């Protein structure tokens, strides 16, 4: 009889999780050195769908690059576009009408909820529960329907323009969004009852994968990964941009540092986003959605510009080095999950594979966004 698995002399073996593994949500690969079910060491291998967005940024003109941003993170696309337009508007001193900024904030928050809903479903599916994914997708469908009526597409919105928006929202959008808010609140209650309170679910997450604040800092973690470790960091509050200072909302922070804390942060964030949407609809001013003098040719003056925004996945930074030309001299995209995923190698040492994959789910990975 031949031996199916040849153990290394030191009784560890290499387990190749990915690039085609159900828990990695895409083409991510983790080489794990295992001792039984325990991980001795892990090395994350990324880059399977690297598309070199930064080079495209250098080749294309500023408006042509607009649609690339929504290809980075297909779940929370609007947040990334928001960062891009804010940066170019800042660099070339374009005034944005107030109505446009409000609509941007509302749609970004809607997109954030949609993204978190998908994460919620996928996360519970990582833990083996399938039905919550379907419930989450039902609610997400509503958001996508609303956004589709406005932007014209369901996933890769190319909605923001330098100076404003692609087209205006109508009353139907406002009323549909208003109808959505109570519905979503009800659904969140259902999710809490079905999933958050569930003893199996809690047992799987409580105390799993503690991340210290120091570790978050060394790796530059943001979003729920940092906030679940007791770091009160949200770019919308720390470094207010757009019309966010006008809104009254809280940044949920949990101090348990474990996977459950990260879960709780995101669930709470959905409630807060609903609050922002509600206020935004109340305050939505009338007016144009593009500046009176529509910027024709975008040529930011030479220099170095940086803009950070809080997307659904964390602090997204975009750096523009301009030489005054029609296209950027250098465009750097700092994607939040890149830093969050980087934590994994160090944090998962000594963990069971079950817990490590649950931890990976709690990081909220979108692989195209890591690979760019």
């Amino acid at each position, binding site marked *: *009889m*031949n031996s*199916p*698995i040849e153990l290394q002399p030191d009784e560890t*073996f290499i*387990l190749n999780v990915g690039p085609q*593994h*159900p*828990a990695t949500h895409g083409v991510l690969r983790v080489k794990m050195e*295992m001792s*039984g*079910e325990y991980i001795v060491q892990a090395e994350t291998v990324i880059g399977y769908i690297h598309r070199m967005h930064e080079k495209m940024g250098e080749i294309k003109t500023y408006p042509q690059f607009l649609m690339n941003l929504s290809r980075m993170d297909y779940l929370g696309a609007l947040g990334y576009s928001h960062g891009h337009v804010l940066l170019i508007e800042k660099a070339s001193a374009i005034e944005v009408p107030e109505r446009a900024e409000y609509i941007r904030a509302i749609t970004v928050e809607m997109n954030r909820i949609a993204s978190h809903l998908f994460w919620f479903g996928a996360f*519970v*599916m*990582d*833990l*083996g*529960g*399938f*039905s919550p994914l*379907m*419930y989450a997708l*039902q609610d997400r469908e509503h958001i996508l329907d609303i956004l589709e009526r406005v932007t014209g597409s369901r996933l890769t919105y190319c909605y923001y323009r330098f100076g404003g928006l692609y087209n205006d929202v109508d009353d139907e959008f406002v009323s549909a969004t208003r109808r959505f808010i109570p519905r979503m609140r009800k659904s969140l209650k259902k999710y809490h009852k*079905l*999933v958050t309170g*569930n003893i*199996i*679910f809690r*047992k*799987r997450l409580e105390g799993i994968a503690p991340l210290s604040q120091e570790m978050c800092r060394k790796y530059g973690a943001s979003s729920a990964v940092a906030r679940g470790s007791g770091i009160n960091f949200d770019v919308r509050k720390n470094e207010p941009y757009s019309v966010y200072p006008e809104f009254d909302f809280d940044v949920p922070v949990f101090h348990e540092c474990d996977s459950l804390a990260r879960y709780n942060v995101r669930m709470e964030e959905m409630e807060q986003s609903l609050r922002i949407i509600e206020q935004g609809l109340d305050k939505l001013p009338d007016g144009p959605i593009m500046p009176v003098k529509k910027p024709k040719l975008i040529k930011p003056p030479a220099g170095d510009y940086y803009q950070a925004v809080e997307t659904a996945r964390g602090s997204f930074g975009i750096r523009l080095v301009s030489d005054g030309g029609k296209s950027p001299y250098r465009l750097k995209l700092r994607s939040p999950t890149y830093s969050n995923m980087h934590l994994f190698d160090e944090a998962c040492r000594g963990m*069971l*594979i*079950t*817990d490590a*994959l649950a931890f990976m789910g709690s990081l909220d990975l979108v692989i195209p966004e890591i690979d760019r």
Partner: protein
Amino acid sequence: MSLTLLNVIVAVVIAIGFAALNAAYLVWAERRGAARIQRRPGPNINGPFGLLQPPLDGIKLMAKQLTIPGGADKVLFVAAPVLAMFPAIMSFVTIPFSETIVAKNMNVGVLMIFAFASMGGMSLVFAGWSSRNKYAMMSSVRAVSQAVAYEIPMLITTITVVMIAGSMDLMEIVRQQSGSILNWNILPIFGTSHNILMPMSFLIFFTCTLAETNRAPFDLGEAESELVAGFHTEYGSMGFGLFFMGEYANIVIGSCLTTILFLGGWNAPLPFLSFIPGVFWFLLKLYMLIATFIWIRWTFPRTTIYGLLNLSWKILIPLSLFNLLFTAGLMKVF
């Protein structure tokens, strides 16, 4: 003599047919049920309500090539799926569906079913070991510890019932619960047991059945988000189909046993309803239990391997031992 032999053969054939039919259509029921829970229609294209889906799936699986991974242990690799199906079918032989419908009643029926149930674990080990796949190997190691951990509370709980009935004969156990719903073993005080802890034993037994049949939330063997597909990662074609059917056949056996031990077997819940044949009541209870299995699977996330072992060793085994002692004490007193 020859008549009895013929009887047995016919009964065995019927048992196999019943098991296979159930396994096939439970897949359909599960898919429809899951879809309803998730507010989808489920399979509804092939035939009315999608009822032709299972045979078509079967044909598709049979038409596929059975690939054996390089370096795999061929004999065990092929034997494992058969071994998964075989014990489940054999167990049907001794299950009484009513007073008369039973292939071969034995006075140690309980023992026989448990003997075959233990063999089910072997097939997982064989499959995992012979596949030459690390995920499958890890899964089979899990399967062993799971089987060991859950057979103990299951057996202890069964001993409690056997103690009350004073027999290992399944028919005898059912007969003692006849009369009305009040005599069923699941009920505290009133039942034949006069034992206040009986609902708890039912829960323990039911949980163990879930774990023994590798059903969610205890499906750690195949845990698709961790181990890809666990022990049957390398199986395709009918090898996979047999594992699949074996799983459902095991569910039927587990539910049959639960019905017989706790829910009064073929007895009608109320005496005046006993004009309806016993087999109807038996199947009703059986399918309600199976529906619960499906319902649970589509509600809960999966436990972890240590969560599963903790549940068994820290909660189920102490409770079932206490239950056993308590029942023994009660029987001594009354």
